[in-house]
């Protein structure tokens, strides 16, 4: 630990020490200059009788000198600097951590060759007493070689590594460097960061800093004027079309370059078949959307690929996606036999505008319901209809218990008697004999709802929907039983939406009508999303991801439409053909045994991963699409100094310019604030000096004479 100074130039102020010396030697006489007519007699007096050049008050003199020294010290802003001591030991051993970016963007042009060359130069520049570690990083960091004095090991590892297909994040690499340096006992600590300085890799919300005193040297391998054509994302529109579904693929293309890209062929493949090719031209630094013709979807999952030309960074010119089956929910709408033609009008029309998922509704009187009608139905809606009696009612109960969804709307056409006893009581809680009439109060309103519930979570954010604007004139007063979940409530405290789990299925009870007769919710903007969410929740719908991002992983237990018993062996085939054995597990397998079986599919490369397992029906197969992290396509750079300042110990350095010491010094000085204590001491010294000088003053000694 050495004493350093932030502003050593202020030591020039110590020249002012001459002031008290002169004051004490001469000033007292000069301050008392007497103009005398002639010194012809004075000068004849022998010299020895004159007092000159002699310090009279040593204590006062020393106090004044001390005050000036303290002042100069305070302004020079001293601090204890471990780095400065280390820096002076230029021949001291170094602990060097070489951070090499091997993210996908490093495959651009000759970046990787330049990075390797810079790393080799650093390794070859190590002295015999130095130690170095080699860390490769993309969106994750890998400690390839831990602190070694063998350059050959470092060089051998460096030559074996290639750029990955993954994104960039600086934080993990800096974290490893931080740990390596803090463990090191060598006096000089150095980090060599070899990267293309992609801005997307820096997350200001994930602050990491190198240990104090670390010298950060940045090597920028990015070239000027880089350009990249990429497919930024896909928009997959699924629409109901007749009895089936159709898919419209929209590809968003981005040209990040200073020159236009002309005649780019954008191709859509479904399976392995090219179904359509479009040609587009992109202006410099522009984006465009390519929309392909609608494609009719079958019942099976299909995989698709969009290809868009080729350039120096080819990984983001492909985009892979999966279209899973069953993205349309079948809704069976059961009405009262006495229903008006418009009873389900609003409900049906609300469902008709759904696209993701799409809804396909079928309407029939509840009296005509057959048990067979329930097959393949995702949700059954009983709109102001009595519970079906007999075997059909039991079938409906069984349907729900088997995982089916049921939505019950209680309106004017039914009464408690229609939902009493037997299977009905299992599905719907009892409710009062007479409905609650709020006409006298000009209607009640929904006063509360659970915004964390799946039905209402889309209304969680402010101004995302107002249920209080709707007036409810009549509704049935439900009487929840144990296990029932009141999801929403009226202003009089009675449930407005009640949920009940029955077997594997879900029941939602809406104690008022779905038309304008008992309430005006249908005229409110929240009606359509509310109906969508109610239906999706009842159907147990989970939106399947069309693709995953490379660098992530997929748990087998979360795969849509797949129920794998625990212990089921699954073989995963990666895009490059390599296979991995996985084991299904309901509970996630932790990292306790990383070498053991995993229930996670790691996505290291873009493309399609195939999962194969066996069950009672034979071999089953599922495909997962994975794409490069599109943030990696953005080659824009962060200012190296900005990154260095963020990564260093409140300091920064880049290239040959070592900024870490300079900025670090400011922060260290600011945190230590020795100047403040020095100024306090100066104040005390000056106070003593004032008191002492007053005491020694001849005028005070003679009573002001």
């Amino acid at each position, binding site marked *: 630990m050495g004493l350093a100074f932030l502003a050593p130039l202020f030591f020039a102020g110590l020249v002012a020490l001459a002031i008290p010396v002169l004051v004490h030697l001469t000033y007292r*006489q000069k301050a008392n200059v*007497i103009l*005398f007519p002639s*010194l012809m007699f004075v000068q*004849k007096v022998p010299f020895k009788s004159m007092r000159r050049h002699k310090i009279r008050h040593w204590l006062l003199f020393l106090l004044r000198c001390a005050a000036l020294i303290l002042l100069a010290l305070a302004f020079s802003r001293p601090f204890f600097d471990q780095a400065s001591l280390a820096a002076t030991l230029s021949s001291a051993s170094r602990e060097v951590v070489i951070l090499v970016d091997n993210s996908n963007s490093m495959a651009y042009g000759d970046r990787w060759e330049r990075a390797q060359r810079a790393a080799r130069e650093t390794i070859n520049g190590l002295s015999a007493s130095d130690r170095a570690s080699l860390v490769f990083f993309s969106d994750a960091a890998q400690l390839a070689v831990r602190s070694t004095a063998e350059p050959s090991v470092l060089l051998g590892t460096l030559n074996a590594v290639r750029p990955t297909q993954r994104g960039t994040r600086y934080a993990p690499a800096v974290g490893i460097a931080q740990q390596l340096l803090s463990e090191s006992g060598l006096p000089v600590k150095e980090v060599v960061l070899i990267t293309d300085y992609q801005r997307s890799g820096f997350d200001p919300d994930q602050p990491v800093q190198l240990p104090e005193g670390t010298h950060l040297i940045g090597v920028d391998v990015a070239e000027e004027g880089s350009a990249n054509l990429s497919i930024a994302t896909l928009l997959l529109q699924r629409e109901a079309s007749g009895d089936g579904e159709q898919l419209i693929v929209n590809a968003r293309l981005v040209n990040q370059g200073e020159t236009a890209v002309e005649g780019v062929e954008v191709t859509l493949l479904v399976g392995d078949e090219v179904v359509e090719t479009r040609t587009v031209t992109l202006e410099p630094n522009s984006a465009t959307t390519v929309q392909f013709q609608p494609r009719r979807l079958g019942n099976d999952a299909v995989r698709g690929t969009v290809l868009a030309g080729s350039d120096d960074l080819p990984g983001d010119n492909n985009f892979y996606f999966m279209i899973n089956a069953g993205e349309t929910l079948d809704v069976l709408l059961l009405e009262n036999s006495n229903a008006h033609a418009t009873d389900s009008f609003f409900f049906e029309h609300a469902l008709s505008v759904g696209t993701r998922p799409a809804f396909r509704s079928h309407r029939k009187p509840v009296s005509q319901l057959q048990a067979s009608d329930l097959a393949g139905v995702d949700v059954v809606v009983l709109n102001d209809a009595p519970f079906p009696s007999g075997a059909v009612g039991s079938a409906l109960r069984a349907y729900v218990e088997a995982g089916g969804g049921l939505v019950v709307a209680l309106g004017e056409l039914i009464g408690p008697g229609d939902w009493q006893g037997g299977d009905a009581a299992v599905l719907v809680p009892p409710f009062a004999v007479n409905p609650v009439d709020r006409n006298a109060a000009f209607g009640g309103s929904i006063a509360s709802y659970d915004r964390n519930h799946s039905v209402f979570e889309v209304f969680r954010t402010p101004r995302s929907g107002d249920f209080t604007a709707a007036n409810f004139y009549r509704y049935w007063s439900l009487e929840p039983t144990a296990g029932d979940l009141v999801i929403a409530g009226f202003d009089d405290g009675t449930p407005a939406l009640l949920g009940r789990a029955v077997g594997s299925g879900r029941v939602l009870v809406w104690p008022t009508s779905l038309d304008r007769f008992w309430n005006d919710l249908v005229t409110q903007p929240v009606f359509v999303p509310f109906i969508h969410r109610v239906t999706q929740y009842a159907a147990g719908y989970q939106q399947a991801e069309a693709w995953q991002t490379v660098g992530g992983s997929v748990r087998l237990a979360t795969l849509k439409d797949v129920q794998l018993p625990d212990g089921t062996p699954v073989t995963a085939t990666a895009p490059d053909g390599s296979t991995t054995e996985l084991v299904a597990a309901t509970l996630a397998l932790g990292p306790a045994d990383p070498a053991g079986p995993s229930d996670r599919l790691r996505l290291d490369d873009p493309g399609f991963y195939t999962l194969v397992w066996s069950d009672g029906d034979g071999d089953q197969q599922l495909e997962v699409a994975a794409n490069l992290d599109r943030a990696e396509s953005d080659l824009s750079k962060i200012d190296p100094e900005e990154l260095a300042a963020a990564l260093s110990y409140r300091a920064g350095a880049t290239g040959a310019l070592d900024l870490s010491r300079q900025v670090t010094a400011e922060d260290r000085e600011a945190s230590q604030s020795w100047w403040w204590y020095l100024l306090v001491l100066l104040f005390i010294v000056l106070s003593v000096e004032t008191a002492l000088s007053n005491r020694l003053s001849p005028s005070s000694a003679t009573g002001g004479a």
Partner: protein
Amino acid sequence: MAANVTGQMKRGARFLDPEILARIDRLDLLARTVVEGFINGLHRSPYLGFSMDFAEHREYMPGDDVRRIDWKVFARSDRLYVKEFEAESNANFMTVIDVSRSMDFGTGPLTKLDYARFLAACLTYFANKQRDRVSFASFDNDIVDYVPPSAKHLDTILHVIDNIEVGGRSEYLKPLLKIAEAAKRRGIIVLVSDFYEEPRAVVDAVNKLRFRGHDVIVYQVLDRAEIEFDFDESATFEDMETGASVPVVPGRMREQYKQMMAEHLEEISSLMIKNQIDYGLVRTDQPLDEALFRYLLQRQRMGRVR
């Protein structure tokens, strides 16, 4: 004798006190006040019956102006006498004051130059009142101001004196030689200075005037501090003329200084007397009457001689 006169005068002429004079802004008023007061004091003193206007009677000689015959004496004595006045002596009177930088020193209400100015003004006024032709000169190392002799130059001289500014270093031989050459007609020359010069050189320079037949009255003006050297604090003493400075502890050299100053004054005085030069030492804290009286005695002596 002069000391006695001074003692008599002090009681009746407070306005001659330098502290009072320092409060009078107008020099002509100051001169008139001092001189008239001085004269009134003389009238009240038992010293002698002195009239500055009338000198003596003499017998009428053919050719005398008949208008000057004293007819009252003729009536009493039946003899013709004519009045003879001092003013009619038509003598020249010149004050010469040293305006060098050392004269700008004073620890009291007046600097030496102020004192010299007042003294010159009073003497000039006095002389003019006796019908003398008055003139004036100031010098440092050369002539600074010069007003030629004339009975009508009182106002001019007072104006010049009033506007005197401190000059440079003092020198005596050169300016006094010039004055001697300019003042060709015999008269009274009053020289006022602090004479920080070797006594021999001072007397040699003054002799240039005396050898021309002038009656020379020398006033050496000094401040009390110059004589007593009663400074307390250690200080740097700076020569007002040369700028040289010396750190001094006054207490340790006071006696030596006073002894040297006394020897200096004694040597000047003895040399002046030896060369028949009327010399007087005045301190700026002393009233002006002593200096005036010294002039009066000299003027009386000239009248008798004449």
